[in-house]
Structures are given as structure tokens and as C-alpha cells.
């Protein structure tokens, strides 16, 4: 971007917003908004506390476990629905329903099922992420040109080969797009799940900070979680771009 003939560095708009935040905070208008500088100081303190590190470990573990399960189940479900009309008819409506449904409402039920522990959080992450992965995988598998499958069969591919060497690869761009969106939903899931259970990981910390009006800490943690969500999605996005470079060029 250019301003008054000067080339502005990237992210300069972010700096503007940081500045506004700092000014509003310094004006002391609301106790909810402390100055950004004190939030940053709090962040540096926060990431050194044992409490935070323990919460991070618990949260990451739930997130990764839930995501791995969601990816395995979502891709399998999507491939099934993309390949077989019957599976699509039977499961399609549910997948489409759950993709757009407010799943937070189901977390209390998960708590009854899985108890007030990690299992509920894993289930929440899974539930939030799995449907979009299934839906995108299905779209990818459905749009594969028939001749690739025919080609592999003509050279003697077994059913297993068709799935592992053709279908999964041909649908990879869509699968990755699904995983990226699933990851963003998974981050939501892990935070919402922990907040509702409220005795685990970041949820416990969020509860602690907001109840005790530790706004600097609260915002510090929020920024970290947001940054994590963006980082994860950018990471998958980068892989996606590399893959799309050749898999996206479809004949």
C-alpha cells in the first residue's frame, strides 16, 4: 500500500489497530480494555507460568487427538459418500445438517456421555471438525474424472490401489481444504468444550481470568488462541497451495 508517496510495510494496518487499542486502553475508558502494552507484558508473564504450560499441553493433546480422529473419520466418510450413491443418500442429509448446525448446544450432552474430562473435549473437537472434512472430501471424490479410475483399472489396479493411489490423491486439494476448515472449527471446538466443562486447560484459565477480572491475562490468552487458529489454518493453506500447484490442474 502507498500513503503520501511512501511505501508502507506489510501489516501496517495491524499497527494502526494496535495503536488505537493502546490509546483506548491508556484513556482508561473501560476496565475491560487494558492497554495493549500491558497485555503484551501479561502475555510474556503468562507463557512462563506452569499453569499456562500445563493447560497448553492438555489443550494441544485434546485438539490433536480430536483432529486426527476427525480427519480419519471425515475422509473415510467423504470417500464413501463420494463413491456410493446409497451412502450419500443415507448420510448426506446428516452431514449437511451438522455442517451448519450450532453444535455447541450438543456439548452438554457430550459431558453427560463422556464426563468432565479430556474425552469430552476430544469429542467436541471431533464433532466440530468432522462434517466439513467429510463434505469437502465427498465433493473432491465426486469430481474426479472417471478416466483416472478407468486408467488404473486397465493397468490392473485392485480396489485398494484405486482408493489409495488414485481417489485420495485426486481429491487431495478438496480434502486439504476440508482439513483446513476443520482445523479452524476444531480450535473453536476445543475452546468451547473447555469453557463449558470449565475445569480443563484453557477453559479453566479463561474462567479464572474473567471471574477475577484479570483482563490483561484474559486478552493475552485470547490473542494466543487466535494466533494458534490462524497459524494452523495458514499451515494447511501452505500445503494446500503446494498441492494445488499440480493436483489442481485437472484435465
Amino acid at each position, binding site marked *: 500500500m502507498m500513503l503520501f508517496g511512501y511505501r508502507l510495510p506489510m501489516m501496517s494496518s495491524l499497527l494502526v489497530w494496535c495503536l488505537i487499542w493502546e490509546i483506548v486502553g491508556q484513556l482508561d475508558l473501560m476496565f475491560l480494555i487494558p492497554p495493549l502494552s500491558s497485555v503484551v507484558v501479561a502475555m510474556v508473564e503468562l507463557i512462563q507460568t506452569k499453569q499456562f504450560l500445563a493447560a497448553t499441553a492438555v489443550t494441544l493433546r485434546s485438539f490433536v487427538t480430536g483432529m486426527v480422529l476427525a480427519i480419519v473419520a471425515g475422509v473415510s466418510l467423504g470417500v464413501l459418500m463420494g463413491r456410493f450413491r446409497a451412502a450419500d443418500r443415507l448420510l448426506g442429509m446428516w452431514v449437511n445438517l451438522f455442517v451448519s448446525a450450532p453444535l455447541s448446544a450438543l456439548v452438554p450432552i457430550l459431558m453427560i456421555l463422556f464426563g468432565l474430562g479430556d474425552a469430552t473435549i476430544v469429542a467436541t473437537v471431533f464433532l466440530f471438525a468432522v462434517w466439513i472434512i467429510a463434505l469437502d472430501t465427498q465433493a473432491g471424490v465426486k469430481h474426479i474424472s472417471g*478416466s483416472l479410475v478407468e*486408467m488404473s483399472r*486397465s493397468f490392473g*489396479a485392485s480396489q485398494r490401489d484405486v482408493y489409495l493411489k488414485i481417489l485420495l490423491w485426486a481429491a487431495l486439494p478438496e480434502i486439504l481444504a476440508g482439513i483446513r476448515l476443520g482445523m479452524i472449527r476444531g480450535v473453536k471446538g476445543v475452546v468451547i468444550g473447555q469453557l463449558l466443562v470449565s475445569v480443563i486447560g484453557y477453559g479453566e484459565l479463561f474462567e479464572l481470568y474473567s471471574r477475577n477480572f484479570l483482563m490483561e491475562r484474559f486478552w493475552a490468552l485470547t490473542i494466543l488462541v487466535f494466533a494458534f487458529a490462524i497459524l494452523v489454518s495458514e499451515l494447511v493453506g501452505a500445503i494446500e497451495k503446494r498441492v494445488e500447484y499440480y493436483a489442481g*490442474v485437472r484435465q
Partner: protein
Amino acid sequence: MPAALPRIHERPMPAIRDNIVEVRGLSKFYGGFQALKEIDLDFPEGELISLLGPSGCGKTTLLKMIAGLLEPSAGQVFVKGKAVTGPGPERAFVFQDFALMPWATVLRNVAFGLELRGTPKAERHETARRYIAEVGLAGFEERYPHELSGGMRQRVGLARALAVNADVLLMDEPFSAVDEQTRRKFQEDLLHLRRVQRKTFIFVTHSIEEAVYVSDRIVLLSRRPGRVSRIIEPDIPRDGTPDEIRRDRRYLDTVEDIWDGLKQFVD
């Protein structure tokens, strides 16, 4: 390499040839629509046979049934005397839209048939490199399909079919998706290949000129339902230059003769 082999000008005597592919009473229905009706055909070993006909005459359907990719509604296909129940290693297919894996390099694409057969990596790559060179793509082994032109992509498809060393090459309008210059070059290459490889080619095309130019035998199909309407053995001199052949009376007469027969199908 091709250059080391003697050029064979005389056409082999058809009488002593066995039929490598036999089609018996083949019919295909799609729902209530009959695409092919009671096709009986013999494909002599070592010949290049074209299946020619108007669009919708079922020539691709016939080829895919020979490939074992489609199941006939009635009748049978025999390859080397054995009934076809699916694809087999003695047949290789060249696809109209190339059907290359866009995520794999030229090398892996060409070696794919061997990969599916479980040939060890070093061995299959060596074979693939040889055929990549044979189709004139040496140096492009590590490229991806989207980096190649249409003509080059089809060479990859051809190399892949050659690499599995099948006896019968099934080609489904292989040159229809490439430009005219490339197409003519391909036809020359096909004739060359036909001389140096002891293979049978079954070649689907909708171009009369192409069929007459490259074929030992042309099977003319009529449509609705598709049936064999004529079998033509073009008597074209093969020893001239491409231009001489294309100007030869016998070549032109054969093209004209087939066109007369096909005119009725033009709507």
C-alpha cells in the same frame, strides 16, 4: 533402439496370422438403448486395425469391452483364446483425455502400470526411462503433466502403455485432443511403432483420413445400434513419403469410398 532394427516394408501375410483378439456376438445395452448389436470381429495379430464410425456408433464402447473396462450385455471377447472377464496384462489402453495423474511426475506416470504389478522401483524406473526416450520425451522425466503440451501428454500416455509390454494396444481416439501438426507427427510415429514393435493395435478414430493413413484394416461401424457395416483393407503404398502417400490415388479413392458410405449417417 528403433534405428538398429531393419525396416520391414512388406506387410506380413495375413493368412498365416492368428487372431489375437476375437469378438463374438457382442451386444451392449445402456438401459433400453442398444449401443452395439451382435458384433463379430477378428483382430489378426500384428495388425493395426481401426474402428471407424460416426459419433455415437459405439466404437469406444467396443474398445472398452475389449479392454475389459465395460461388461458386455451379451456375447464375449477372447484375447489369445481366453475369454475376457476384466483388464489383463496382455492389453494396454491409451486414453483420449490422456488420463495422467497430475500429482505424479512423467516418470511415475509412465511407470504406473509396472508399479501396480509390483515391479521393483529401480527396475520399473529403468523401463520407464527407456520408453520415455522412445516417445521422444527424454529430459522430461521429472516434469509434471501440467507442464507439458497436449501432444507431449499423449506421448506420456503412449509410453505408459508401451512400458507394460502388452501384446495389444487399445487406443481410444488418442490424437483427437492434440493439434493437427502434432496429430500428423503422431500418425508417423504410430506407423513407425507399428513396424518396430511386434504388437497389435486397435485404434478408435472418427477421422477417415487418419484411419486410411495408418490402418492395415478398417472396421466401419454404423450407428443406432452400432454394427459392423464394412471391413476395408486399404491397399496403400507404405514406402513413400507421407506427402506422396497422401497424394496417392489409392489413398484418396479409399477415403472417398468410405466417405460415400458414411455420408448417410450425417444428420
